[in-house]
């Protein structure tokens, strides 16, 4: 008998699988950590393009007609590309492709994803989708300017910017992205269900994983709606079918289309679009829960409720989509149904907010940069959520529809809030990637600049919405019902936006500088309990666990356990190895007996 026969199969490391060339290690890598970084760099790069586009939009809104390179067509193209890139190609890709890829195998105690080759393919397909999207800037007519919702018939009709090649490239890019997401998503759910290490039951998983898990299932079930609508719209545009196109007169010419339903597209789009909000939000909910718990040195309040809330929000997110369509002329009873479901979804969401606050309550709060961003998230998310309750009601939504109030609402809830969590997560897990901290002073500057700056942008924007300022208008011109002061407010918002944009440059400098010169963090610098910090090699190497995969003995939130020497017990520490305080009389913790 050889020695190897006594070792569990998962512990038998196949050394031949470790790539040794530069290409194998960093380009065609099948290592989930490298793929996560590839996803993250691509997503952040394309996100910066979207950030610049938003800056251009703001320049036009703040100082109309001052910049000759922004005309009405290009303004609409900036709006469209900014929205689509931010929602799909940055947030979805970074949260699931980036953090999902990095954290899933490490947090469940696996060596990698279950299908590493498919994982690699997923990234390269995602990169292809980004390339196709960005190439639309280079084609004749430029990218589509149909608005990120791409509503037909206007999206594919002459007169709309990018109605020729631009819209086709957008639809093609989305279809490719969905293929990439499906490959990645199948990997994430299967890995979580089938590759957890011994002892890692579903209910011992950190909430980060629950968020990613449920969000991935939402993505797998919701993205098909976008795929279906993209395919049908391509048919309408290229072949001349009439799935979404009604009989129409365009630029004085009667088109061949007849009988199609533009409203049908809206239903399909929002059947994807609303779960998409939670595809972004649920991983953020999970990650912020872990950051708060770790930096408050306290177990998350109501773990089971948090899991149930994630699942409930995921389920409910499929029955609220038409609240985006109150002004489409729907049956009032239909509107009533969707208003009700929308308000119901506030219950599990509010429960999560209360639980974050109760975790902080009497915790040993460390105001580290990740914690600052996490607390900032609670503010921005609560504000965005409350305006969501307002817009969920039909009677309030109707007058506010298509105004800047809506823009302010969804930027607070879906833009700023997940971004706050992403920053919290980057500052928190950066030592795991590099073995170094991000610079603390620059981090705090980054936090306050971003937090206060985004409020300076979006609070006044709500007011503009109340005044009736419509969204997606290149310029207001002379509009009687809007006071001149609205323009001053718009200029102020633009200045704030530029400042927030510049603050992000500080963040990027911090990342680059700290990667090479940052203060060394040492192992497990935040004294966290979850498995990703307990690897044999730090930062974790290929295969994650050295010779033996970990055995899990407890949940991920054993912080400040009474009478235990350290204020945290990692998940892989066996009950017999827990060190108690010297005074045996006080050793009365029933949980460890």
């Amino acid at each position: 008998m050889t020695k190897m026969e006594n070792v569990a199969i998962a512990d038998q490391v196949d050394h031949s699988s470790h790539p040794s060339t530069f290409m194998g290690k960093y380009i065609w890598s099948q290592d989930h950590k490298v793929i996560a970084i590839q996803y993250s760099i691509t997503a952040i790069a394309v996100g910066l393009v979207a950030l610049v586009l938003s800056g251009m939009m703001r320049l036009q809104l703040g100082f109309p007609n001052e910049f000759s390179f922004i005309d009405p067509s290009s303004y609409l193209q900036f709006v469209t590309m900014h929205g689509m890139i931010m929602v799909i190609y940055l947030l979805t890709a970074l949260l699931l492709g980036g953090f999902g890829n990095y954290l899933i195998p490490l947090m469940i105690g696996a060596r990698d994803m279950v299908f590493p080759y498919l994982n690699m393919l997923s990234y390269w397909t995602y990169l292809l989708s980004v390339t196709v999207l960005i190439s639309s800037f280079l084609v004749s007519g430029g990218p589509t300017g149909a608005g990120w919702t791409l509503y037909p018939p206007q999206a594919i009709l002459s007169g709309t910017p990018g109605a020729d090649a631009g819209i086709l490239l957008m639809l093609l890019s989305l279809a490719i992205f969905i293929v990439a997401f499906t490959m990645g998503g199948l990997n994430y759910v299967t890995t979580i269900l089938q590759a957890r290490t011994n002892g890692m039951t579903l209910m011992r998983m950190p909430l980060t994983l629950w968020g990613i898990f449920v969000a991935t299932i939402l993505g797998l079930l919701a993205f098909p709606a976008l795929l279906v609508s993209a395919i049908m719209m391509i048919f309408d545009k290229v072949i001349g079918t009439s799935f979404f196109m009604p009989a129409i007169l365009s630029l004085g010419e009667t088109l061949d289309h007849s009988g199609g339903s533009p409203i049908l597209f809206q239903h399909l789009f929002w059947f994807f679009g609303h779960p998409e909000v939670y595809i972004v939000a649920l991983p953020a909910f999970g990650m912020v829960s872990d950051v708060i718990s770790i930096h408050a040195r306290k177990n998350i309040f109501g773990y089971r409720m948090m899991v149930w809330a994630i699942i409930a929000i995921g389920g409910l997110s499929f029955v609220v989509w038409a609240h985006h369509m109150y002004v489409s002329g729907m049956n009032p009873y239909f509107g009533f149904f969707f208003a009700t479901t929308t308000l119901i979804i506030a219950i599990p969401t509010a429960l999560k907010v209360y639980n974050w606050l109760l975790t902080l309550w009497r915790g040993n709060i460390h105001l580290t940069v990740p914690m600052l961003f996490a607390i900032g998230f609670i503010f921005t998310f609560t504000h965005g959520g409350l305006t969501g309750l307002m817009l969920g009601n039909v009677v309030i939504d109707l007058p506010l529809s298509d105004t800047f109030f809506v823009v302010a609402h969804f930027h607070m809830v879906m833009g700023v809030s997940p971004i706050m969590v992403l920053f919290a997560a980057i500052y928190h897990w950066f030592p795991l990637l590099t073995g170094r901290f991000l610079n603390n002073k620059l981090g705090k500057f980054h936090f306050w600049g971003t937090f206060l700056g985004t409020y300076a942008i979006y609070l006044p924007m709500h007011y503009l919405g109340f005044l009736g300022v419509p969204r997606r208008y290149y310029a207001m011109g002379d509009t009687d019902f809007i006071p001149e002061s609205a323009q001053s407010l718009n200029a102020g918002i633009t200045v704030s936006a530029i400042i927030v944009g510049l603050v992000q440059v500080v963040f990027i400098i911090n990342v680059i500088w700290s990667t090479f010169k940052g203060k060394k963090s040492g192992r497990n610098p935040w004294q966290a309990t979850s498995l990703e910090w307990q690897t044999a090699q730090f930062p974790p190497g290929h295969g994650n666990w050295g010779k033996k995969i970990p055995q899990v003995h407890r949940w991920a939130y054993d912080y400040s356990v009474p009478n235990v020497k350290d204020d945290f017990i990692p998940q892989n520490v066996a009950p017999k190895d827990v060190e108690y305080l010297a005074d045996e009389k006080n050793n009365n913790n029933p949980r460890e007996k």
Partner: protein
Amino acid sequence: MHILKTLRVKPWLPAELEPQTNLPSALLNKEKSASTALQFFLAVITVVFLLFTITFLQRTQSFDFQALSGEPWLPFTNANILWQNSAYLLLASISIILAKKFAEQQSLYAIIISLTATTLFTLLFISGQVQVWQQLNQSGFYITTNPANSYYFLLTGVHALHIVGGVLVFMRCIWLFYFNLSYQQLASRLKLCARYWHYLFFIWLFLFCLLTSDADTFKTIALICGF
């Protein structure tokens, strides 16, 4: 229900029984993982066809919709060729189960015959579908002339793409078997392929019924669904 029981667990309490140690990790339990992934993938495909179907049913109630069967001059009033195609797909689905059985019995010649049959019948199905497309075009039922035609081409096209995806995986499986796959591994992969083919067949039957229904049937469905 197992899942409800799981979700009721209180993880902060010590486990009554420590989970077993030294079990082989499911990371290397490829069959189980592939099976789980396939289930999720088929769920994704189900949603795709479900959404297409809903849009189709809604469109059947528009003024310009002309069903493809019912009247004698309509192409699918007599759908013999579609029945023939269905038989091909059914035979492909059966032969792949036989291939899996023969792989378990390690009977090489039987495996080769059954895998060849699967390939042949699947290709016959695809070519049969292409033939239907050609016949529709020759009879003036172009993709743009009527929404029913548009949906026929769209749905059967997407279904054909679904089949092509399966064929690629199936071919890879044979390729790997030719080089280094064991009989046991082949059987386990063919089991998944068989599940995929059964699903293809089920979806095709559904599409067959849907696309060849007459106007009265659509009216009844629309009434029930509230379109």
